[in-house]
């Protein structure tokens, strides 16, 4: 990361392009490494696990939103990477370059309203 990130918790929003549509029926998992590893519990984290959902991540199945919110920044140590592996993603329908991915990093997240702040 070009700027320092605190290890006291953060939320990463991964916005997928429209040509990699997420589906409410797919089972997604993510595995976090280094700065994005779960604070506690197992890895990978399954989205259908309510307990892990509430502790480790918010998750959007709304096709119009098309994004994950994953809790991270729990690692300690210098120069850690932010690395996330997400499964259950359907590749595009043609051999082409996809639209743009967007990654946002916030300090705070309200799981009830999906509001990301700071």
């Amino acid at each position, binding site marked *: 990361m070009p700027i320092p990130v605190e290890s006291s918790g953060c939320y990463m929003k991964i916005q997928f392009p429209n040509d990699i549509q997420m589906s409410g029926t797919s089972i997604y998992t993510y595995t976090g490494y280094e700065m994005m590893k779960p604070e506690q519990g197992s890895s990978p984290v399954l989205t259908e696990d309510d307990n892990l959902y509430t502790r480790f991540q918010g998750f959007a199945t709304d096709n119009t939103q098309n994004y994950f919110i994953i809790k991270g920044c729990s690692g300690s140590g210098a120069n850690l990477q932010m690395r996330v592996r997400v499964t259950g*993603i359907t590749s595009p329908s043609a051999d082409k370059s996809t639209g743009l991915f967007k990654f946002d990093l916030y300090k705070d997240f309200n799981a009830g309203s999906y509001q990301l702040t700071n």
Partner: protein
Amino acid sequence: MIFRTPSTQAAPTCSVSPATGTKNVLGTSNGKIRFTIEPGTHFPKYGGTITFTIPTWYGANLIYVFSSSPATTCSSAQLDIVLQQLNDNQYTIRFKKYTPASSIIIECSNYRNPVYKKIVSGFSMTVEDNESIQNKIMDYNDWSLDGTGLDQVEYAGSITKQFYINDVAKKPVPVQMISGLEFSF
């Protein structure tokens, strides 16, 4: 002999501004911080020492908001500064003359902006006179810098993406196939 307790003025205000040609964004380490101080009537006209106590930059690491390399340096039109140095969480400025004014403005370079939008607390300041045994003249206790208005940082194209199938890196993947995707940065 009359003993006096140090005078306490209204807390200074402080604001940050970007280095020339850059935006005022979160996480930068080359910003400029401006302290605006009400000197009152007791500020030592014939020189003295200002000691800033400064907060840490982020996390639990002992990295402070002022920098030793490249070095933070401070300047003021109202103070004739002769010496300044950073020692952990204390920044000392010695001045030989104060030109009275309604406010003293001290600008310091290489300031480290907060890494997310927040109020940065933990600043304080003392002022001592220039006697051989220095007397504390003023205390400016805890005050804060409002960093909630700083802009977010935007980067383009700095993330590695890699498709996975059955845990094996694959590029390109077949179309319309359930796969994994790894991001790292």
